[in-house]
């Protein structure tokens, strides 16, 4: 019997390949999801009813249904609607996770925008800035700083949730682990290694979040 250590060394390169996929899916989804989420979050506080209601509907729909179901709809149901909408697993994963995280990030954006003191808007308006300018020059930059820590937490959640992509045959960290198990039958060792790698990813991420939190609080 190999020791756990030498066994790990042997299979680590495979698992690291899967890790790269996991990180790629999470990173791309958080970037796309943030852009989408911020737009929806600002739309949510719009004075124009149609816009705010549409954004509210989006958030309600996405947050109220399981992520796994959303992933299946993108990967399996869309191609049935129209073959043009057939994506490789990686693309499906990024689409589904972006759509999903956008809803949560929209709520983060809305909350932080509303947390900015109304005096900031009043000061901007009293200087002659329009509503839009006040939002983009004064309110949003401040709200964005406050968004960073919860965005980091969203990123941590996404790294873990991305393990769901193993169900659509994308060789992420978890799926790669399962593949190694299918030829070695070393369940405990492999799953332990997979767990350790997830822990390294999320710990690094929370360290980054902590650093950002300290930097942000300097100005407040």
């Amino acid at each position, binding site marked *: 019997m190999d020791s756990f250590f030498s066994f790990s060394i042997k299979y680590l390169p495979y698992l690291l390949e899967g890790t790269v996929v996991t990180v790629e899916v999470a990173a791309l989804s958080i970037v796309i999801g943030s852009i989408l989420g911020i737009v929806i979050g600002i739309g949510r506080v719009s004075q124009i009813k149609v816009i705010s209601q549409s954004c509210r509907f989006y958030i309600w729909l996405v947050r109220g249904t399981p992520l796994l179901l959303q992933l299946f709809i993108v990967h399996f149901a869309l191609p049935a609607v129209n073959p043009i909408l057939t994506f490789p697993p990686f693309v499906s994963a990024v689409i589904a996770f972006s759509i999903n995280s956008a809803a949560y990030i929209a709520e983060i954006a809305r909350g932080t925008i509303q947390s900015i003191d109304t*005096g900031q808007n009043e000061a901007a308006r009293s200087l002659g800035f329009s509503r839009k300018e006040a939002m983009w020059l004064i309110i949003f930059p401040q709200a964005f700083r406050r968004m960073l820590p919860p965005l980091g937490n969203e990123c941590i959640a996404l790294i873990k949730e991305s393990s769901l992509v193993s169900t659509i045959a994308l060789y992420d960290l978890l799926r790669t682990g399962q593949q190694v198990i299918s030829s070695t039958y070393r369940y405990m060792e492999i799953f332990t290694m997979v767990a350790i790698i997830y822990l390294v990813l999320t710990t690094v991420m929370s360290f980054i979040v902590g650093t950002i939190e300290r930097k942000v609080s300097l100005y407040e």
Partner: protein
Amino acid sequence: MTDEIQLQFPILQFKGVFKSFGENHVIRGLDLNVDKGEVVVLIGSSGAGKTTLLRCANLLVPIDRGEIIYSGSPVIHVNEGNSNQLTTKELNQYRTEIGFVFQHFNLFPHISVRKNITLALERIKKMDSNAAKEKALDLLSWVGLKGKSDNFPSQLSGGQKQRVAIVRALAMEPTVMLFDEPTSALDPETVGDVLDVMMKLAKKGMTMLIATHEMEFAREVADRIIFMDKGVIVEQGTPQEILNRPKEDRTREFLSRVLPKHHSLGENSED
């Protein structure tokens, strides 16, 4: 010729202004004219409507009824079921001419002191960034904050913040400046610096409408003091008339609560 005609108008006029928040009637039929270069101080207890009146003046809050006129032209006019006000663009332009200083400063915390001042100059007045910077530095040294231009607001004391806020409003070269209890949120030892700056502004001929609880300052700076209670003007006159010889009981009662004991109130004095 137009100059002569303009001189006939007060710079800012309130005509029969009403404002309520739900059941709370804050301003109840208020008339007020402010002349160019005049320093008008609003006194009265909290809830008298001073702050709301100032906020109505630059339409931070819309009025329910009445008229506000700036330099002879209507800013807002509301009567039974009929409301006219400046277009959004005109309103933004109007606000650049009315400087507002807030009780809680409302400096922008995410940008430097200098940027707080130059942002509107560059974006709204389309001023060249070097010229805007120079202007900011000049004004900062005028209020005694020469070395603070690169600091962030969080690094300043309350009195320093308020002086920056005054500079931010002043840099836009407003015709009228509104001060909403500018020293109420300050530590006592920094109040003087802010009042000094306001005094200097008044001496330069700035038209000012000031809500304050600083009676000694009011006495010194005001051309006219207005005592407000429950949303109406109870009494107005020179500092002498209002602070030394108030005619109305309500004024007397208010002053007896806020003025130090040694200031006699005409015949009513117990000394």
